[in-house]
C-alpha cells in the first residue's frame, strides 16, 4: 500500500494532521492501535492554562508568544505563532464540518468546571460547556444546581459543590445539589459494571427519554439557571438532544467531564474521524506499526503487527503515537525508549530522577516532559544523531513540554499536527513540480 502521507497514531494530533493532508488532496492513511487519549480527556482544548507558579493564564496567545521567545525547544516554538493561530482557526472549522461546534472566548481563556468542582482554564469548549449565552447568563450571578443520576458513582455533586464554593468566581452564588433518576435505572442497576458515563450517554443518543429527564432536571434544579451534570447528552446526536433539552427545561444543562471514558472527548474523536473519512482519508483501526527501515536518513517503509512482512510505504510519515500512556514511549527498569523507531529522546536516564516526591506536586513529574527530540521542522533524530527527512513528530510523543502542568496538551497536539501537515503538503508540492 502506498500513501502520500501515513500517520502513525490516531489521537488529536494525528487526526488534525490527517484532516489537513486529506483536505489538501493527499492520499492519507491513519493507523491507530485503539482508543486514543481523547477518550480520557476533558473534551475542551487547552491552549495554555498555567504559569509556572500555578497562577492562571488568561491570555494564552500572549503567554505562548513569551514561551516561543524563552524556550526555543518547546513544541510551540517549533510551530511559530502564525501557524498556531492558523491551526486553531482550522481546527474549529473542521470540527464544525464534522458536526461539532466549538466555542471560545475570543482570544482569552474561559473556564470549565471539573468533577471535583475545581475550575480549569481552557480555550475551546463544546456548547454545553461554554458559549456566549452561557457567558452572559453567568454574569447575572445565577443560581446553580449540580445534579447526578441516582446510583451513579462517577460524580458526587456534593463534593463538587463544596469545592466550587471555595473559588472566588462561585463564592457568592447559590449552589444546590440534587439527583435525577434514569428512566432505565431499574435495568441498568442490575449489572454492576454497566453504569458508566458512556452507558448513560448511549441512552440519550435518542430522544426517547428526553421529556422525562427534562422534567426531572427542571424539578431538581429548583429554579436554578444552570444544571451542572455529568456529561450525558449523547455522542452522535449531541446537537439535537442539547437543543431539545434547552427548549424543554429552559435552563442551561452544563456538562462536566467525569471519570473515563469521557463523553465530551469521544464527541471530538467522533467529529474528527467523520471529517477525515469525508475528505477521503483512510482510517485503519486495531493495528499497530511495530517498526520500519530508515535508509539514508529517510524512512523507506513501515510494517504492522497484523500484516507481518507486508510493507506500507508513504512519501511522508507522521509519528503521533502519544506518550507513555498511549504507548508512544516505553520504559524499563532503567531504560527509556521511543517505541517504534527507537528515536532519540529528551529524558533523564536515572530512574529515581523520573518522578517527584509527591504525587500531586505542583511541578508535576519530570517524566511527563520526556519525549522525542526534534529539529525546527519536527524531524526526529535517530540514535546516531541524524535527522529523518520524511518523518515528522506531533503531539504527546514530543518532549520539552508538560501538557498537564502548563495546561497545553490539546493546543500542542493540534498545532504540531497541523504544522507537520503543512510541511508535508509543501514537500509534496515541491517534489511533484
Amino acid at each position: 500500500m502506498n500513501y502520500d502521507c501515513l500517520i502513525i497514531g490516531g489521537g488529536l494530533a494525528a487526526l488534525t494532521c490527517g484532516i489537513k493532508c486529506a483536505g489538501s488532496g493527499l492520499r492519507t492513511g491513519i493507523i491507530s492501535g485503539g482508543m486514543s487519549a481523547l477518550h480520557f480527556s476533558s473534551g475542551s482544548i487547552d491552549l495554555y492554562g498555567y504559569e509556572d507558579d500555578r497562577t492562571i493564564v488568561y491570555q494564552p496567545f500572549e503567554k505562548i508568544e513569551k514561551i516561543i521567545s524563552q524556550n526555543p525547544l518547546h513544541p510551540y516554538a517549533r510551530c511559530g505563532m502564525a501557524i498556531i493561530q492558523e491551526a486553531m482557526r482550522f481546527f474549529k472549522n473542521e470540527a464544525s464540518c464534522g458536526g461539532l461546534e466549538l466555542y471560545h472566548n475570543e482570544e482569552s481563556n474561559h473556564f470549565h468546571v471539573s468533577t471535583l468542582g475545581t475550575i480549569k482554564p481552557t480555550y475551546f469548549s463544546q456548547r454545553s460547556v461554554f458559549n456566549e449565552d452561557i457567558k452572559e447568563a453567568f454574569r447575572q450571578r445565577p443560581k446553580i444546581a449540580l445534579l447526578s443520576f441516582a446510583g451513579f458513582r462517577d460524580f458526587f455533586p456534593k463534593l463538587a459543590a463544596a469545592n466550587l464554593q471555595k473559588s472566588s468566581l462561585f463564592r457568592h452564588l447559590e449552589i444546590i445539589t440534587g439527583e435525577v433518576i434514569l428512566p432505565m435505572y431499574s435495568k441498568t442497576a442490575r449489572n454492576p459494571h454497566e453504569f458508566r458515563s458512556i452507558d448513560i450517554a448511549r441512552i440519550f443518543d435518542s430522544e426517547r427519554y428526553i421529556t422525562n429527564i427534562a422534567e426531572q432536571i427542571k424539578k431538581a434544579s429548583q429554579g436554578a439557571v444552570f444544571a451542572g451534570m455529568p456529561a450525558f447528552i449523547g455522542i452522535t446526536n449531541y446537537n439535537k438532544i442539547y437543543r431539545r433539552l434547552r427548549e424543554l427545561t429552559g435552563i442551561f444543562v452544563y456538562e462536566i467531564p467525569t471519570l473515563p471514558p469521557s463523553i465530551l472527548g469521544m464527541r471530538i474523536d467522533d467529529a474528527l474521524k467523520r471529517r477525515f473519512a469525508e475528505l477521503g482519508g483512510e482510517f485503519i483501526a486495531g493495528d499497530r506499526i511495530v517498526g520500519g527501515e530508515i535508509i539514508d536518513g529517510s524512512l523507506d517503509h513501515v510494517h504492522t503487527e497484523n500484516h507481518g512482512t507486508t510493507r506500507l510505504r508513504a512519501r511522508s510519515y507522521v509519528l503521533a503515537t502519544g506518550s507513555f500512556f498511549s504507548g508512544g514511549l516505553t520504559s524499563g527498569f532503567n531504560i527509556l525508549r521511543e517505541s517504534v523507531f527507537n528515536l532519540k529522546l529528551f529524558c533523564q536516564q536515572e530512574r529515581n530522577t523520573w518522578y517527584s516526591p509527591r504525587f500531586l506536586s505542583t511541578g508535576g513529574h519530570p517524566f511527563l516532559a520526556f519525549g522525542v527530540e526534534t529539529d525546527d521542522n519536527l524531524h526526529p533524530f535517530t540514535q546516531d544523531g541524524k535527522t529523518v527527512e520524511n518523518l515528522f513528530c506531533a503531539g504527546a510523543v514530543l518532549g520539552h513540554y508538560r501538557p498537564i502542568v502548563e495546561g497545553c496538551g490539546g493546543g500542542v497536539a493540534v498545532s504540531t499536527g497541523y504544522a507537520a501537515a503543512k510541511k508535508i503538503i509543501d514537500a509534496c508540492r515541491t517534489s511533484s513540480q
Partner: protein
Amino acid sequence: MKSIETKAIVIGGGATGCGTLRDLTLRGIEAALVEQNDISSGTTGRNHGLLHSGARYAVKDLESARECIAENKILKKIARHCIEDTGGLFVTLPDDDPEYHNRLIEHCKYAGIECEELKLEEAFRIEPHLNPYILSALRVPDGTIDPFRLCSANILDSMERGGKVFTHTRVDAIIAEGGTAKGVRCIDEVSSEPFEIRGEIIINASGVWGQRVLSTAGINLTMLPSKGSMVIIDYRINNVVVNRCRVPSDGDIIVPGDTVSIIGTTSRTIDYSDIEKLTVDDDEIDVLISDGEKLIPNVAKARVLRAYCGVRPLVAVSGNVDGREISRGIVLIDHESRDGIKGLITIAGGKLMTYRLMAQWTTDLAVKKLGLSKKCSTFHTPLPGSEQKVKKPQIRQFTGMPNSIIGSTLYRHGNRVSSILSRQNRNFSLVCECEMVTVGEVEYALKKLNVKNIIDLRRRTRIGMGPCQGELCSYRAAGLFNELGAASPIEASQLLIDFLEERWKGIKPILWGDALREMEFTYWIYQGLFGLGDIAERSEDE
C-alpha cells in the same frame, strides 16, 4: 480532659494487640485498645502474608518451627476466611547446596511438620511456572494469611463483646503513679483532642514502637529494628507458596495472595530513628526481582505493582533483664519484676504466625495479675466470618448478583457476607473494579470496621490494591465517605488526596513499564481532569 475507665488497656493495633484484645474480651474482661495509626498498619501489615508451616525455621530454630506448625493448625480452623490453604514447595536450584534438602526433611520430622518429597513432574503439575532446572522439590503445609483481615476479625469480635477500639490515637505517655501504671494519656490524631484511659493493667504490644512508649514510664527497652522489603507482582503468578530450599536469605520466597504474588524479603538493620521514614532502596528491588526470577522465570515478564517494607521488632534482651524469655522469638516482660512498675506488661518479638499464642501468654499473665482465673479459648473459638463453612442455602439469597461479586465478598468476609450484600438495597454496584468491592462492602466497612479514611478502607476491603492502584475507585470511595456520612465534602476531598499520596509511596520505587503508564494516566485524571492538586495546595494554604 475526657477520661475513660476500663479494666485492661492494650497499646498497639498489630496482630498481637488485636489478638490480646480479643483474648481479654473473650475471657469477659473489659478492655480498650489504642493504636497510633490504623489496625494492622505497622509491621503486621507489612510482610508477605505467609502462613508458615514452620519449615523455614526448622533447620535453624526448632522451637519457632514447632510453634509455627501448632499455630498453623489452629489458624486453619479459627480464621479460615483469612487463610488460603495453598500448600507450599521448597525447591532446590542448581546453585544451591543439595545437602540442605535432606537436612530440611530431617528437621521437619523433629518439628512435626509434614514434609513430602515430590517427583519433579508432580512439582511442575502443582506449579507449572517453576524454574525448569530445579533439582528437587518438597511439599510442606505452608499457606497464605491476610494480616489485615485477621486483625479486623479479631477487632470485630472484641467490639461485639464490648471491647473499645481507638485507632488514629497516639499514646503520649503511660500514666505511672507511685510505682503503678494507672492508664495512658492519648491524643486523638484526627481531632487533636487529648484524653486519658484508666485501667488496672496496661499491655504494651506496640512492637518496635514500644521503645518510645515505655520510655514515657522511665523504662528502657532497646529494640533492634530490621527492615524487610517486598515487591508485589500484578496478577497471581503462582498457585502455591514457593520457597527456595536453602538457608533463609534475601529474595527466596514467592507468596501468592488474593489477586497478586509477593516476592520477599530483604533484611537490613536500620537505625531506630529511621523507623518512621522507611523507603525501599533500588538495590533491594534489584535483588528481589532477579532472585524471584530464579524461582519463577515469569517474574521477568510480569508487571511490578508496588514495593513496600516493614520493620521486624527484634528485642535486645540483655544485661539484668528479669523478664521471662519464653522462646527465642517471643518476649514477655512483667515490668513489676523487671523495673518495679506494677500493672505493666510488654509483649514483643515473635511473628505474625504466633500472634495468638503471644496473646494467650500475655492474657494469662494479665489475668493472674488481676487476680482472676479465666481460661483461654482462642484456640478453638472461630473468628467472626469463620464460624462455619458458608453453605449453599446462604448463598441462594444472593441469586441475581454476579458470582464474581458474591465470591469476592465471601472470600474477604466469610460468613459475614449476609450482613454485606443485599438484593433489596441494590448495594452491589462496583466501587473498585479490580478487586470487586461493592457499595455494600464499603458501607459495611465504614459502619462496622473502624474505618477513618480511604487508606483504612483499603486494608478492610482491598479497595485500590489491584492493578490500577486506586485510579478509578479512590474518587468513588471519597464520594461514598461523604454520602454515608463519614466525612464532609471538603474532608472527603482531603481523604482522596491522602490516599493517592499514600499509594504513590509504594509506586515510586517501581516506577517503570506499565506502572509508569498507569501513573501517567492517574495523574492525567486526578490533576489534568479533576485539578486535585489545586485542592491540595489550597488546603495547605489554609
